[in-house]
């Protein structure tokens, strides 16, 4: 059986490969809600996110021309940021010793 540490490291590596590499091949059609909103017509009521001009908006790092690199770097930043926030939260929440 693989150790806890190895399991977590492998999981993070797989996530980094998916967000940093495979994400370039994601389908770029509108998602279910967006498509329904377009078809029915309420897409017009959508407003831009207040951060729509931020450097990571829409999963691309601004300033990088190469699309593969841009989405890949954005994905990796997302993996690190999600890991930092959720890792910190769950480590704070955990019981220090398993209950007997």
């Amino acid at each position, binding site marked *: 059986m693989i150790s806890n540490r190895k399991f977590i490291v492998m999981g993070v590596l797989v996530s980094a490969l998916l*967000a940093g590499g495979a994400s370039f091949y994601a389908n770029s059609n509108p998602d279910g809600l967006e498509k329904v909103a377009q078809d029915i017509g309420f897409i017009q009521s959508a407003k831009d996110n207040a951060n729509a001009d931020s450097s990571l908006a829409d999963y691309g790092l601004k300033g990088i021309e190469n699309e593969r690199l841009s989405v890949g770097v954005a994905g990796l930043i997302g993996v690190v940021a999600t890991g930092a926030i959720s890792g910190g939260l769950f480590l704070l929440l955990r019981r220090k010793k398993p209950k007997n």
Partner: protein
Amino acid sequence: MHIPDGFIDLPTSAIFAAASAGAITYSLVGARKQLDEKSAPLAGLTAVFIFAVQMLNFPVAAGTSGHLLGGALAAVLVGPYAATLALTVVLVMQGFLFADGGLSAIGLNVFNMAVLGVWGGYAVFLLVRKILPKNKSSISIAAATAGLISVPIAAVGFVFQYALGATATFSVSTVLGAMVGTHILIGIGEAIITALTVSAVMASRSDLVFGWENKTSTLEIREQK
């Protein structure tokens, strides 16, 4: 599935933000009792993995894509309390860092995906697990069914919010039909990804899987060695 700003009016968004805040508080209390040295890192990894896989939109029908929501998957792996928190972290991050999902709509999105998707998916998982024989492949089948149904459940959450506070005036039944139809298709993708992931974890470290009932006995045997 990420609702942008503007679809739903602010009073309705505020109501769902309050409801989501309540669910998050409840989950914080539950997760605090449940998480230990072994399960806490897995909960963190679950959030990371769901963020990554949510970037991978797959085609579902002509001109439409879908992506994993991950609520059922997270509930099976780390339990519904930690799952609600993991999904909330992902959604807040997506809204603030990647402008995916409106900031005023965060409460709506957390409610649909981190609350309805997680707890609805978990309820389906428990039901299916009860019917099936107690073995490892049943866990994957139950998780897949939970994934499949959790997506239209989250979609109905949106329709409910639309009915209460849409800024547009299209009929609720039209929106309901279109949302459920599309999201059953997306649910098939959700079921496949959920089954593959749960199977992989069951094969390598079944003792880590919250939804695997027999894990306590395996745990004790391991500790006595």
